């Protein structure tokens, strides 16, 4: 391990071109935390089973605790920090906020990113699609009923023509 060969990778991180020098064994999570100070993706189970480490690579959700950093060379990487637009929370984030789809919050970014992938594939998901799509994300506080409601609210909100953007931190007055 002491004689590892570092290599420089380049990728798009939340819309910005970046580069990083990574060792072969390093994971996406380690690089995001160490080089970019991003902690929204978190390692918990360390086996790609809980979903706390979820990030989107070219639009597909992957487990950042297992996905090697070397593989993100040349890709478009999105973390939860990249969802808000100029200080305005993404509609999925707004829905999780309005419906309190969280308790301790540790798993929340993973659920939000998985919801993003879900709603891009199925803009009007059925309950069954929601349950199955999010079954790979775990919440030990078991805020599941509120998470499902958040996803439904986000789907509705995204299906509406956009109204005036809301400032970050404010709840939609007419959801």
């Amino acid at each position, binding site marked *: 391990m*002491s004689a590892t060969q570092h290599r420089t990778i380049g990728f798009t991180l939340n819309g910005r071109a970046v580069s990083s020098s990574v060792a072969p064994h390093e994971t996406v999570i380690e690089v995001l935390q160490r080089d970019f100070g991003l902690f929204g993706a978190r390692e918990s189970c360390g086996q790609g089973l*809980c979903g706390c480490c979820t990030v989107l690579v070219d639009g597909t959700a992957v487990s950042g605790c297992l996905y090697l950093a070397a593989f993100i060379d040349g890709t478009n990487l999105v973390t939860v920090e990249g969802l808000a637009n100029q200080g305005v929370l993404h509609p999925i984030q707004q829905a999780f906020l309005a419906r309190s789809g*969280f308790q301790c919050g540790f798993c929340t970014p993973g659920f939000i990113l998985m919801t993003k992938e879900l709603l891009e594939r199925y803009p009007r998901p059925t309950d069954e699609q929601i349950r199955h799509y999010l079954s790979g994300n775990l919440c030990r506080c078991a805020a599941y009923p509120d998470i499902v409601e958040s996803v439904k609210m986000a789907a509705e909100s995204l299906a509406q023509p956009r109204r005036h953007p809301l400032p970050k931190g404010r709840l939609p007055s007419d959801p």
Partner: protein
Amino acid sequence: MPRLEGVAKVDGSVEYIYNLRIPGMLHGKIHRSSVAHGRIVRIDASAALAVEGVHAVITAEDIVKVVPNPYYGPAFHDQPILAIEKVRHVGEPVAVVLASDSHIAEEAADLIAVEYEPLEAVFDEVAAARPGAPVIHDVLKPAGTFTDLQYLGGRSGTNVALDARVRRGDVAKGFAAADQIFEHTFRTGKVIHATFEPIVSLAELNAPNGLTIHTASQSPSFVRMEVSRLLGWPENRVRVRTAFLGGGFGAKLYIKLEALVAVCALLVRKPVRIALTMDEQFYTITKHGATVRIKTGVKKNGRIIAREVETYWNGGAYADIGPRVSQKSGFTSAGPYDIEHVALDNYAVYTNEPPAGALRGFGISQLVWAYERQMDIIARTLGIDPLEIRRRNVLRAGRPHATGTIITGMEIDAVLDRLAERMDWNRAFDRGSGTIRRGRGLAIGLKACISPTTSTAIVHVHGDGSCAVHCGTVDMGQASDTALAQIAAEVLGITTESVRVVHPDTDLTPYDMATLGSRSTYHMGNAVRLAAEDARTQLLRIAGTAFGAEIVELDCRDGAIVSPTGDRLTFRAVMLARFGMQAGTVVGVGAFTPSYTKPDPQTGQSTDVTPFWMLGGAGAEIAVDCETGRIEVTKLVNAADVGSAINPASVERQLTGAAVMQLGFTLFEEMNFSEGQVLNASLADYKIPGLLDVPRDLAAAIVEVPHKNGPFGAKGVGETGVFSPSPAIANALYDAVGVVVTDLPLTPERVLRAIRESENRPLERD
């Protein structure tokens, strides 16, 4: 009421100790025992030290240079910071590698070679309590914290760390007068918290002579006291701070990694961070497994007249808070029932398994599993409806609990009514036919909030009308920041959003016992209310002088003091009146310790054993596949007497969240052991509930009975949802197919075996 920290939780920026990096810090990785009980013959760290990047390898030999007597624990000083001479469970920390890179530390930790002389080990709590069992600790060493444990000091040759009893009436007489006697033994295995934020602590030295511990802890005040005691330092040199916790559930209480990182930092004079992986959590703290023997004497009409309960609590190798679980929950083991003759015995037992401590419910769910499972067996035998038999026996206001404390502030009938209504209990129920059978069941469980404990709070009112609450309550997901801000805001007549709750930092926030046992809303809620009232009184007094009015005539609302004639004085104007300028701070202080009467050590009798009773009921409908033994919970209702709900949505979320956690403990979660080794120490092999496990019909039903001493009538609720789902589901299984299952969890194999045995065609054993 949206949560104050909500935006930070959905945009990923919320602060956890997990995120903290300190320049120059070293990462620690623990080398753990591979045997369950053994004498350490030799530790060879040479290969680890040879790895490039390794800064140091720390063993007990180094620890004692800083802490001569390095044993810690909230109930007993029995747990060494690193193993000394002996190891007592697989996974016990033996050495720590410190390196600048966590991968290097991990690689080097694996290279440490430890030679053990194996000792005979004991794992079962009943076997460990018998005379002649291998003795795990030479002598019992109660901590000074709890005076009622002092009598155990110096006891040797036993694994029973605590024996606690309750005696009421005369059980022999009661059994003699009974029409029928029921005797069963129920068991629950060990399960774990699996908090998603790791158990993580960092320590750094502060010039000239201080130490700061950043830790994901539910009990920062205790950490400061215990680390100060270990180091022999005054408490004001040890600063302990925390942030939001990514889950707690009891895993992050008392000392976990804090003493270890503190001593490592002192030894190497550098900041040290240790974060456990998920698999290490399995070797750090668990819920108690328990064996509950319950004997109940009843009259033909279903009235229980005598009950004897003997509970053995598997505490693992170190006591942690186990003796408290055994006693404080053990005294409720007769259930929420009005019984004339009661004898309850609880044994906290050391075994060679990983330590057991508090896990959401503090022992209650193990007891409810026994007495509510037996209740349905009694009901069916006597031909009485399960709801009706409970109605005939429940404790009502004004009646004495088994401890002698008169019941007040709890309405069990109201919870039963709500359950019956939500379960539509009087409707005919289709039990199905063929291989899929259906059943329904219910259960109720009782907890006494732990006592005596203290909370202290400080409220700062600033010149601009904003406010800060300084308190030691840790928000680990239960929304305490928001609830406490609501309480301060209500008293001060300001918006909840203008209150900031300052997170625990022992340099800034005053003493709080801990965030545990559903105590914070009640205890800290009262302390914050008192502190806000103190600040309010000061604001009114200053304004009264300015208005020339009596303070009783004034009101504090919308960020101003209002006189009877409608004159308003903003907080800024109050500051001007008080300090001669528009800046300043009005400081309010509040402390709350509920009344308490210590139980008699021989009989467990007390006139005032708890500040409030918690009552949680569950109703379940299930479908069971008789060919596979798989249970599907189709409906789960969780009803609870919650006092007045300060934030009803948060209360419901706590109830259903707790119920789903307990659903995992009911259906599939169980640590499997072989010779003390955990066979399934990962989320790959130890499954926790996901979305597909959540019942389609999952509901909370809150019964609001304002508590006379609670802040705005509230009482605690964080644990209530775990009490009753397990027996409710097993009672539904009993209703569906008539089989008696005595052990948790209700795995398909266990259920199928029970079904096949009931059909006289048992499955072969392995």
